[in-house]
């Protein structure tokens, strides 16, 4: 074996990797011990190999990699057949179609902001449940992100001061809606709904617009890519204090 052949053989050699011992490597290493010039090359080569391995093995991994992977997988992955039996799907489709046509079809008013706001208010008046109960806004955001609901909403100082109670993921015309439950001073709950701006026609402006809806007082505004509706069992004056 010549020094050049030894160098080529040892180019694919890794320090301390037992499984790579083969006769050619042993021959090359023997030559390294005998040839000072080759030994100098080999010492530098081994240092390069260690540094390269160390660099690649310690590449920084994004802190939210896990959440991002799982979020995409849950959106993309097909459900197992036993979770979507044909009969169940067909029946659900019929019910949905009938329901949707009743709620949304007349005059194509279904996608308007007013309809969205009414629907959200009715949801919490009639029956609602939090999918997650926690006092941590970070956990709420993580939950919503995992369920493809808006999670990057912004809260003004007034809303930020309210204690978090939990959250839920609602749906509006196939769009995910974030429902964030905030504690109020009168022991009741304020409901903040957030949906993508593109989900509603004629969204409100950037300045909160107050209006009573059913038994609740609401404030609505648009910020960034999201439309916000705050619904609370309180007076107009008290709701204004939050803005």
């Amino acid at each position, binding site marked *: 074996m010549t020094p050049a052949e030894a160098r*080529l053989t040892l180019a*694919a050699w890794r320090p301390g990797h037992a499984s790579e011992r083969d006769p050619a490597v042993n021959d090359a290493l023997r030559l390294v011990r005998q040839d000072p010039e080759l030994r*100098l090359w080999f010492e530098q080569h081994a*240092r390069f190999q260690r540094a390269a391995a160390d660099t*690649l093995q310690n590449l920084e*991994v994004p802190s939210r990699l*896990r959440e991002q992977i799982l979020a995409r997988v849950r959106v993309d*992955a*097909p459900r197992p057949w036993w979770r979507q039996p044909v009969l169940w799907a067909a029946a659900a489709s019929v019910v949905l179609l009938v329901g949707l046509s009743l709620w949304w079809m007349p005059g194509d008013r279904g996608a308007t902001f007013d309809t969205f706001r009414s629907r959200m208010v009715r949801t919490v008046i009639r029956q609602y449940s939090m999918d997650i109960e926690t006092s941590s806004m970070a956990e709420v955001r993580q939950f919503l992100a995992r369920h493809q609901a808006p999670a990057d909403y912004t809260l003004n100082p007034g809303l930020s001061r309210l204690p978090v109670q939990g959250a839920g993921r609602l749906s509006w015309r196939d769009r995910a809606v974030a429902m964030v439950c905030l504690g109020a001073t009168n022991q009741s709950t304020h409901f903040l709904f957030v949906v993508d701006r593109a989900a509603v026609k004629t969204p409100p402006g950037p300045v909160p617009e107050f209006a009573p809806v059913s038994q609740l007082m609401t404030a609505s505004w648009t910020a960034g890519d999201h439309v916000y509706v705050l619904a609370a069992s309180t007076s107009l004056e008290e709701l204004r204090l939050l803005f």
Partner: protein
Amino acid sequence: MDDQLDIETLVDQHQAALYRFALSLSHNESDALDLVQETFCLWMRKGGQLLDRGKVKAWLFTTLHREFLGRRRRLVRFPHHELTEVESELPEIPPVPADQADRERLLECLARLDPVFRAPVALFYLEEYAYQDIASILDVPLGTVKSRISRGVAQLQEMFHRPLEPSREASR
């Protein structure tokens, strides 16, 4: 629920290694993230076909690599340059990455490495896989893997040794 537990366990076990492999191949964080996500999505769709559960990790690496190659092929058909004399590509005195800047440079050199060599070299450094495992992941013969690693390491050292090409520097 079992599926969710399975995928979460799989993600916990392999996300970091797969991301590093993807980043070594693409040299782009966004592309690397997308490759890893797509790999796990493919697992959800096709992983059930894998009978030998001991080969899940290799399946994930193989899938990520194929996805990377597929995307590359869609982007550009790159010419393959035959190495003339590999021995001559090994620098007389191999350089040694010493600091963070050198490490960045190493990554950039890896990204500029001929794609044929990039995956075996990345696996060689990243995962401490045996040659046979790398051959299995890349679906090439054992001798080819050894040859590609040797040539790839030679190219990498040579690239690291010489100054950046003006066009690359100008594009920064």
